[in-house]
């Protein structure tokens, strides 16, 4: 059984089909990179996984249990908010626009959910938060507010914040697209490091070189369908594949 199993995922916005029966399996400890031209449904697929978007049809299961739904015969009934929240704690998400909490320091961003949601003792959370910030190369910047950090630094704090919940699955939605070219490298470096450490990751990106280096599987989306899927060498070197 795969860690993430998606079957027949379908989603339309105002009658425009964005996802059209997507099947996807992600094995524990693997890195899956989603590529494809803009508007091909990559972000929507990612956002369906932690239920930021509501799919029209299809199932998403993490670790064998359906996310945000329970099966009722032929139907999937949406769970109440309080039942979805615990499921989301196991799924980390990193956004294109970082979305750090602007009124909190870097460290406060990282410990907010462990303390407030999981009930980790503050002292312990701070210790782990410092370690996580050090891991993404931000030792000494614990007390900086997001506005005092560069884009690359903010995105690394955002990664530390997601990791602080010890998720079983990490989702990255174009984590480097909002960054200056000079800052892309430092964020990709953290992603490489996580991949090497065995974190299960699904990454939406336009960084083909990163996909080639780090991905176990490259999935190419086009018009809401999976057009190609396989090891990077196979998919990216195929001249017929439209990846961006």
């Amino acid at each position, binding site marked *: 059984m795969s860690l993430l199993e998606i079957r027949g995922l379908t989603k339309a916005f105002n009658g425009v089909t964005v996802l059209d029966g997507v099947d996807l399996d992600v094995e524990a400890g693997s890195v899956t990179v989603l590529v494809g031209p803009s508007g091909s449904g990559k972000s929507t697929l990612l956002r369906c996984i*932690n239920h*930021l978007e509501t799919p029209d049809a299809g199932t998403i299961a993490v670790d064998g249990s359906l996310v945000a739904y329970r099966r009722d015969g032929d139907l999937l009934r949406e769970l109440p*908010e*309080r039942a979805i*929240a*615990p*499921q*989301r*704690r196991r*799924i*980390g*998400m990193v*956004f294109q*626009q970082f*979305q*750090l*909490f*602007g*009124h*909190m*320091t870097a460290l406060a961003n990282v410990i*907010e*959910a462990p303390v*407030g*949601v*999981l009930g980790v003792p503050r002292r312990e959370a701070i210790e782990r938060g410092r370690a996580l910030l050090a891991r993404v190369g931000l030792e000494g910047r614990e007390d900086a*507010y*997001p*506005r*005092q950090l560069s884009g690359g630094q903010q995105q690394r704090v*955002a990664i530390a*914040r*997601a990791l602080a*919940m010890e998720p079983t699955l990490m989702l990255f939605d174009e984590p480097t697209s909002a960054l200056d070219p000079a800052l892309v490298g430092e964020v990709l470096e953290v992603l490489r490091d996580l991949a090497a450490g065995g974190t299960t990751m699904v990454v939406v990106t336009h960084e083909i070189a990163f996909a080639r280096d780090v991905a176990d599987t490259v999935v190419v989306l086009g018009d809401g369908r999976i057009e190609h899927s396989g090891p990077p060498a196979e998919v990216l070197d195929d001249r017929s594949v439209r990846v961006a």
Partner: protein
Amino acid sequence: MTSLAAPEAPPGSPPRTVRSRHVGRWVWAALVVVLVVWALRSVALNPAFGWGTVAQYLFTTAVLHGLATTLLLTVATTVLGFLLGIGLAAMRLSGNPVLSSVSWGYVWLFRSTPLLVQLLFWYNIGALYPKLSLGIPFGPTFFSIDSVNLVSVLVAALLGLILHEAAYAAEIVRGGILSVDAGQSEAAVSLGMTRARVLRRIVLPQAMRSIIPATGNMVIGTLKGTSIVSVIAVTDLLYSVQTIYDRTYEIIPLLLVATVWYVILTSILSVGQYYVERYYARGAERTLPPTPLQRLRRSFR
């Protein structure tokens, strides 16, 4: 052959710049200073202002008592009005169409009628509902009480002010919440927070930055607005001085007594607003601006 070079400067040092003289500024400044001094002098020396009488009444028990009532009304109206307003804003922004519509209807109704009219309604509540009872709607009643006994003039004033304030506070809070990027909520929800927690920990603290200036306006408006309760005979600051001048006919000096107190209180509130704003600017600006005190200290160093 003509040279294109600038006029000769002493070798080695670049030419010094000189600011242009603002002659007009000096003329206008002098004119305005003369006008202000003239106005202040007339206020100070015109015996009709009766500054002696003002000083005499400023700290009398009746005036201080009225002042306390005004403060009580302001604090209660602001605190309870805003609590109700936050609830109304949450209802309006909720996905529940009934709650949302009811909230909209509330704001519509209480903003559509003058506060004075609302106060008069509450003052006369006994004519509308002679008895108030506690029970289950359309069901049994547990106990009931005559309205006139429960709704004193002070309670009528509080009800009117709070319910009116809540309508405006709801819009201020809603505006503040809408000013926070929706991505902030998504990020918080992705961390497994519940909606209520997201609102309390993530959205509201950031919304405060745009809520505070509007709230400052509201509090100062409320402080002065409470003087309207004098029409239903609540002994607030204005009503207290009115009671005195009805007896002594020293109308202007006693209105000045009220004015002086209103100015003192609004000044305190304005300074308070500055510091509250500064507190909520954490993270929103790279470095906080110095407080006036810090600025003062720095200039003496």
